[in-house]
């Protein structure tokens, strides 16, 4: 299905037309759901700010204007602005290149063009660079963990759920336009996805701030999506349409899923911050008792993002895994190696995400409060207008998890569209059948849980059970501060990876027989920021400083430069 609306007016370099095709349908679905929920959420979340702040349209303005008095937020806004501009630079190059080869700026015309191999490869690389910055691939992700936590929660949800997906959409669009990509493109995308996914989740494990952790998790999910797209591309370039549809379809479903559960998680984090005025996990604890609804919805989001059965994350990861395992059989040896690496990294990402979200949920919502959390005393403290969007998103996560058939049409439509193949040529039944069985097993699982709960009720009777303090071998906690913290929970994994994560630890040594107070600070630093961008920035500062010395400060001289350049252009073009 494809609907095109052409405007009756012209714009420079082409005509104005809007189109709805299977690809952008998927993205639009995610946008509509998440924007609506965020808008409802915003009415509750922004109540304290109401009437005070202007609201802009672009994400940059949201970031800067909402809390511009904080230097960190201003910095985040600038970093985002710079990253966007860099991305746009690459995209301009890419579109000019493609337009030059196709002779038109119209996507339809481009899609009908057969690009030469070199142009196709260059366009792919430029798209990766330009849209990769937007999507947050490693190592150009560094703006993301600054920008996303700085915005208000529902805007963070939109930034993570939608804004970075526009990068993915751009890559998908280029994949759709350029049909004849060289074989290595699929491997590149797969490798990029593996690296982004693994590093994203590892960095996330090292974070102690709730929204920053969620932001890093977005990088992981973008990685999973890229793995899916890479599988699809491999299938397309090796003429295995089934594989292509599986990979693209799984990636597209993960786009939708990620929008849903990451939106849900950011909204949940917003509720926590709204209530406690702190996003530092090591200050929180025991919120499941005071905010039962938020805790429940957040759990749904955590189960989804870990890709656990019953929820939507499992369905999309299942499709991508299925594609990778199919690739083991259908691809040549180098493809088999790539697919094996993909499977392993997905498995590792899953296990690490599980560690990460059991940490988040366990530290923030379970146990005892680690500090005196200032709450206003009401039982839930979250307005209904904030709970409702979370409920909607959680319900959708569960819905896709239990009734995946309701979305398979949509996403495989997008998949076949991207794969440039005939939908009927692809044996989709081979994956839809297993998916249906998965769902049946999930329902049986729920029935078993119900049965076991009833059995337990039978054993225990209906009398109230005794409630005591935590036993733990008689080891009585002297203070709730002694509980495991997010830093100590993640320590073993982070220390294993300390060379990659730039794990730093200061203090923590106690001396003497009766040691006094000691402080310990551990942090994880972004390697690509510390090793690539900061030195790069320092270098460019150095260079521009040198240039600055030689600059002569007369306006007339600049005017002369412009005049000379104009003359040069005129001669070059008109000669």
């Amino acid at each position, binding site marked *: 299905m494809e609907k095109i609306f052409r405007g009756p007016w012209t714009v420079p370099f082409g005509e104005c037309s809007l189109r709805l095709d299977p690809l952008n349908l998927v993205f639009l679905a995610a946008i509509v759901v998440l924007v609506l929920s965020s808008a409802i959420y915003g009415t509750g979340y922004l109540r304290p700010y109401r009437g005070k702040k202007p609201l802009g349209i672009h994400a940059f303005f949201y970031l800067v204007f909402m809390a511009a008095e904080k230097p960190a937020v201003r910095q985040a806004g600038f970093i985002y602005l710079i990253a966007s501009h860099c991305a746009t630079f690459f995209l301009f190059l890419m579109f000019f290149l493609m337009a030059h080869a196709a002779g038109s700026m119209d996507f339809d015309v481009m899609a009908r063009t057969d690009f030469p191999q070199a142009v196709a490869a260059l366009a792919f690389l430029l798209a990766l660079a330009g849209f990769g910055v937007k999507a947050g691939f490693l190592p150009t992700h560094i703006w993301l963990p600054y920008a996303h936590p700085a915005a208000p929660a529902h805007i963070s949800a939109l930034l993570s759920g939608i804004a970075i997906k526009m990068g993915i959409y751009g890559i998908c669009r280029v994949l759709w336009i350029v049909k004849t990509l060289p074989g290595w493109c699929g491997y590149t995308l797969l490798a990029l996805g593996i690296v982004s996914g693994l590093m994203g989740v590892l960095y996330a494990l090292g974070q102690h701030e709730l929204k920053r952790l969620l932001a890093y998790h977005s990088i992981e999910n973008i990685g999973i999506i890229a793995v899916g797209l890479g599988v699809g591309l491999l299938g397309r370039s090796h003429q295995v349409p089934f594989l292509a549809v599986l990979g693209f379809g799984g990636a597209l479903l993960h786009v939708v899923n990620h929008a849903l559960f990451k939106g849900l998680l950011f909204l949940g984090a917003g509720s926590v911050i709204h209530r406690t005025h702190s996003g530092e996990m090591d200050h929180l604890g025991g919120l*499941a*008792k005071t905010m039962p609804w938020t805790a429940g919805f957040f*759990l749904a989001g955590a189960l989804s993002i*870990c890709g*656990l*059965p*019953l929820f939507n994350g499992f369905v999309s990861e*299942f499709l991508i*895994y*299925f594609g990778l*395992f*199919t690739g*083991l*059989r259908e691809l040549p040896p180098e493809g*088999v190696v790539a697919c*094996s690496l993909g499977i*392993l990294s997905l*498995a*590792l990402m*899953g*296990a690490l995400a*599980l*560690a990460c*979200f*059991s940490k988040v*949920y*366990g*530290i923030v919502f*379970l*146990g005892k409060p680690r500090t005196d959390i200032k709450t206003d005393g009401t039982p839930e403290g979250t307005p209904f207008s904030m709970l409702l969007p979370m409920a909607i998103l959680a319900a959708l996560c569960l819905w896709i998890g239990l009734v995946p058939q309701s979305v398979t049409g949509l996403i495989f439509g997008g998949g076949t569209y991207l794969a440039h193949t005939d939908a009927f040529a692809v044996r989709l039944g*081979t*994956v839809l059948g*297993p998916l249906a*069985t998965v769902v049946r*097993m999930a329902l*049986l699982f729920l029935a078993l*849980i119900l049965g*076991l*709960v009833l059995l*337990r009720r039978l*054993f*225990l009777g209906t009398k109230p*059970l*005794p*409630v*005591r*303090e*935590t*036993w*733990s071998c008689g*080891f009585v*906690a002297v203070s709730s501060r002694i509980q*495991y913290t997010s830093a*100590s*929970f*993640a*320590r*073993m*994994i982070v220390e*294993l990876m300390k060379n990659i994560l730039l794990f730093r630890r200061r203090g923590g040594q106690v001396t003497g027989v009766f040691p006094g107070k000691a402080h310990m600070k551990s942090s994880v630093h972004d390697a690509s920021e510390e090793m690539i961008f900061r030195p790069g920035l320092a270098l460019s500062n150095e260079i521009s400083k040198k240039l600055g010395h030689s600059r002569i400060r007369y306006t007339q001289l600049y005017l002369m430069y412009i005049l000379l350049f104009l003359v040069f252009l005129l001669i070059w073009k008109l000669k």
Partner: protein
Amino acid sequence: MSLLFNKAVTFLLHWLVIGALSPALFGVIARVKAFFAGKKGPSLLQPYFDLAKLFRKKCVYSSTTTWIFRASPVVSLAVMLILSLMVPFGRFRAPVQFPGDILLVAYLLALGRFFMILAALDTGSSFEGMGASREAFFSCLSELALFMNFITLSLLSESLSLSRMIGADIPMSWKGLDPVLLLVVGSFFIVLLAENCRIPVDDPDTHLELTMIHEVMILDHSGVDLGYLLYASAMKLFLFFAILVSIIIPVRTGHPAVDTGIFLGGVLAMAVLVGIVESIMARLRLNRVRLLLLIAFALAFFSLIVTLWRN
């Protein structure tokens, strides 16, 4: 209708087998360890008595805990019951098999683990938090090794379903490719020991040692809840044994009774083997466990390389 009835019967049969036989494995292991220690040892039926005792007891809950703490035993047991439908028992194919069921198996295990970790953190005790942290860490490594094995088996059997990977096609593989399967078996055995918290990794008999991983997480569970957890861990052991036995002894004589005997004998032998390992080995230091799991990973990786190299 009769199809549904047949299905229900096979489901119940599988549940009956695993429900009735799995606790005995703990009894066998305890007996082997007692034999090595020169003691008489408890009766083989002792685990059943323990379970019966626990099911008659009430639970005590900490005031810190939430519903998650109560949910985790139920989820664990339900996960094992579902898994027992997807793992073949010797010649008896799994009642539920479909391409990609290995993913459901792995992720259901992860679901149970997720709830166990949350339940441990729910008590607010740093002791149990420690166990939770370790479980999260080691499961990352064992999951990696597990998936590596799945890849190799999938390549060997050209299939995506557990029942086919370790089922009928293995005898052919044993004839031609034995070293690869040897590596897979070795790697899987280490994963088995780690996932079931047996001795070189974790000691199921102590709670107070500093290397504890899984056992410390269930410190605060009591009564029926603890019974559920114990039952679930017995079933988990049985399921891992079943997979390993199906790889090692892929005999299909055609006689149901003989095949069943071979399968159960294999499971019994596995229990004895684990008992021997527990008797002759000390528990590894915590930072060596990581190495053990990495070796399991390297073994599986090696098997994959050899498989790829042959193709």
